[in-house]
C-alpha cells in the first residue's frame, strides 16, 4: 500500500507538471505546423504568467487573470509575427529576442509595481483556479485501486488541467478535420501551393501564431494563478524549452505531444521525488540526470536513432511571393 501511495503521488505531480508543457507544446505545434519556428514559447509563457498574476490580483478574478495572460501572450505572438512574417526576419532570432524581453520586462515591471523582488503579491484563493472535486468521489472512494486513483489523481485538479487534456483532441480536430487546419498544415509544407490557391500565406501564418499566443496564455496562467498563488521571477524556468523538446519528440503531432509532455512531466516529478533517495542496487541517482533526460532524449531522437524527426518542410523559411 505504501508503494501504491507513492505511485499515486508521483502520478499526481506528473499531471500537475505536465499541464503547462501540454499547453505550450500545442502552441508550438500550431505555429510550427504553419511554418513559423517558435523559440519564444518560454517568453510568451512567462509574460502570460506575469499578466495573469497582475490582473488576477487587481480584479480578484481568476478568469480575468486568464484573459489578461492570453491578451499579453498574443501581443508577444503578434510581434513575432510582425518580425518573421511581415518583415521576413529570422524567426529564431525573433524568438530569442522575445524571450529576453519577456524575462527582463516581467522582472523590471514586477519590481517597479510591487517592490517584492520581482514577485507579485500573494493572491487570495478567490483569485486562483481552485481544485475541482469531480462527482462520485464519495461513492468510489472505497473501491480498491480505482478509488484512490480517481480521488487523488483524476479528481481534485483545477479547471485548467481538464482544459489542457481537452485541448489535445480539440487541436487534433482543428488540424486534421477543418479547412483551417488543412490550410495551416499546407502552409507549413508548401506555402507556394497555398498562395497559388488564392489563400493569403501571411494571414494564415498570423492566425497560427495568434493561436500559439492564445495557448501560451493558458500555460502562463496555469503557472501563476493555478499552480502557484503569485508570479515569481523566471517562474517558467526553461519549461518553454522543454515543451519545444516535447514538440519535437512528438514529431509535431497533437496526441503524441500529450504523451511526450506527460513523459517529461514524469521525469520532472521523478527528479523532485528522488532527491536524496537511494534506488536499490544502484544507490542514489543524481537529480541532474532526471533534469537532463528530456533534453538528452530529444537529442537522441533528433539524431534519428528512434525514428526520424522531420519538421514541417517550410519551417523557418519566410515566404516571398513570386513576382
Amino acid at each position, binding site marked *: 500500500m505504501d508503494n501504491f501511495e507513492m505511485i499515486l503521488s508521483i502520478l499526481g505531480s506528473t499531471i500537475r507538471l505536465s499541464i503547462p508543457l501540454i499547453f505550450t507544446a500545442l502552441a508550438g505545434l500550431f505555429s510550427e505546423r504553419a511554418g513559423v519556428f517558435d523559440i519564444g514559447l518560454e517568453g510568451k509563457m512567462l509574460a502570460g504568467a506575469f499578466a495573469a498574476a497582475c490582473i488576477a490580483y487587481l480584479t480578484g478574478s481568476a478568469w480575468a487573470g486568464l484573459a489578461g495572460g492570453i491578451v499579453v501572450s498574443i501581443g508577444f505572438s503578434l510581434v513575432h509575427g510582425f518580425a518573421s512574417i511581415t*518583415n521576413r526576419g529570422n524567426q*529564431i*532570432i525573433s524568438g530569442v529576442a522575445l524571450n529576453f524581453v519577456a524575462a527582463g520586462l516581467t522582472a523590471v*515591471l514586477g*519590481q517597479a509595481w510591487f517592490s517584492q523582488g520581482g514577485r507579485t503579491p500573494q493572491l487570495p484563493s478567490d483569485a486562483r483556479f481552485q481544485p475541482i472535486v469531480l462527482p462520485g468521489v464519495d461513492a468510489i472512494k472505497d473501491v480498491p485501486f480505482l478509488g484512490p486513483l480517481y480521488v487523488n489523481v483524476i479528481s481534485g485538479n483545477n479547471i485548467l488541467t481538464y482544459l489542457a487534456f481537452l485541448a489535445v483532441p480539440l487541436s487534433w480536430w482543428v488540424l486534421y478535420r477543418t479547412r483551417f487546419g488543412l490550410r495551416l498544415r499546407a502552409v507549413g509544407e508548401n506555402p507556394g501551393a497555398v498562395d497559388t490557391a488564392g489563400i493569403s500565406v501571411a494571414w494564415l501564418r498570423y492566425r497560427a501564431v495568434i493561436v500559439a499566443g492564445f495557448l501560451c496564455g493558458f500555460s502562463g496562467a496555469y503557472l501563476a494563478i493555478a499552480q502557484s498563488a503569485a508570479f515569481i*521571477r523566471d517562474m517558467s524556468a526553461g519549461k518553454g524549452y522543454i515543451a519545444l523538446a516535447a514538440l519535437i519528440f512528438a514529431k509535431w503531432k497533437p496526441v503524441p505531444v500529450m504523451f511526450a509532455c506527460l513523459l517529461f512531466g514524469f521525469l520532472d516529478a521523478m527528479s523532485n521525488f528522488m532527491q536524496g533517495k537511494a534506488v536499490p542496487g544502484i544507490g542514489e541517482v*543524481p537529480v*541532474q540526470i532526471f533534469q537532463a533526460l528530456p533534453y*538528452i532524449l530529444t537529442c537522441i531522437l533528433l539524431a534519428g536513432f528512434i525514428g526520424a524527426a522531420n519538421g514541417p518542410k517550410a519551417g523557418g523559411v519566410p515566404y516571398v511571393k513570386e513576382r
Partner: protein
Amino acid sequence: MSTASIPLPNWITYGLLPLINLLLAFLISGLVVWIIGENPWDALVLMLQGALGRGEGIGFTLYYATNFIFTGLSVAVAYHAGLFNIGSEGQAYVGGLGAALVALALDHYCPWYVTMPFAVIGAAVFGAAWALIPAWLQAKRGSHIVITTIMFNFIGAALMVYLLVHVLIVPGKMAPETRTFLEGGQLPKLDWLMAMFGLKLGPAPFNVSFLIALVAAAAVWVLIWRTKLGYEMRTLGISRSAAAYAGIPYVKIVIITMLISGGLAGMMSLNTVMGASARLQVEFVGGAGFVGIAVSLMGRSHPLGIVIAAILFGVLYQGGAELSFDMPNITRDMIVVIQGLVILFAGALEFMFRPALVRLYQTMSRQTVSGQKISGK
C-alpha cells in the same frame, strides 16, 4: 518594387542601420523607464557615469566586455557558415571546467604565464567538445543545430551542477565551487594598462583575458577574410548548394566551424573563472553566451563591430548595476530588456528600415548625380 537587391554603401549597412536599430531599442527602453515613473534621461546619464565615470567603472565595463567579445565572436564564426549557435552559453560553462582543471593542476607549480597557455587550450578544448555533438548531429544527421545547441545548454548546466556538487566541491564546504586557485592559477589584473591612462582600477576584475580576447578578435578576422577555411565557411553560409558545387565538404566545414565557435565560447571562462573569482562556480556564465547573440548581430559578425558592440554591452551591464543603486525601481533586469530589444531590432527586424533607406538613398544620390551634371556643363 523590391528593394532587397539594391546595394547600399557600407557606411549605411554597417554604420547607419545598426545605429538606427540601436536607437530604437533605447527609445523603447526609455519608454519602459518612463512607464515605471523615472526620468529616462536621468537614467541614461547615471548609467553612463556609472560605466565610464571612474577608473573602477571602466574596469568593470571592460571586464564585462571581455566576456561578450568571446561569446560574440563565437556566435559570429558560426553565423558566417550559416549556423546559428545558441549554445555559446553552455559551451562557455563547460569550457570553464577545462580552464579550472588546468588551473587546479598547475597553480602549485607554475607562475600564471605558464599556466595561461594551457588554460586557454583547456578552456577552448572543453568548449569545443561541447559543440562537437551538436555539430556532428547537424552535419551528419541533419538535426537542426539551433535545437540541439539549446538542448546542450541545459544538459551542460545539469552536468556542471552535478560535477560541482558531487565531484569538484571542497570536502566539508557547503558552496558548490572548487577551491580558490593559488596565484599561479589566476590571471593578473591589468592595472598597469589603466595606469597608463591615469586611471585607478580599484577592485574591478579587469584582467589579462581582455588582451586574449583582442588577439582572438584579430585571429577571427584573419580566419574569416584571409584564409581558405574562412572563404569556404562564408561560401557555405551564403549558399549550401553553391558550396557543394565548388567541392567544399559540408560535414568537415560544419564540424570545424562549430569547434572554433565552441572553443571561442569556452575561452570566455578564462575571464570569469581565472580572472575574477579564481574558482569555478555554479552559473558563472550568467547569460554572457546569450549576450553574445546580441553582440554578434549588432556588430554585424565583424570582429571590429563585435569589439565595439561588446564594449557597449559592457557599459550597459556595469552602468545598469550602478543605476540600480541610484534608482532602485530600475533593476538590473532592465539590461535584459535592452538586450532583447537590440536582438529584436538588429536581428529579426533588420530589414524593417532598409526599404525606406534604399529609397531615400536613391533619391539623394540621383540628386547629387544630376547636380554634378549641371555643375559640369
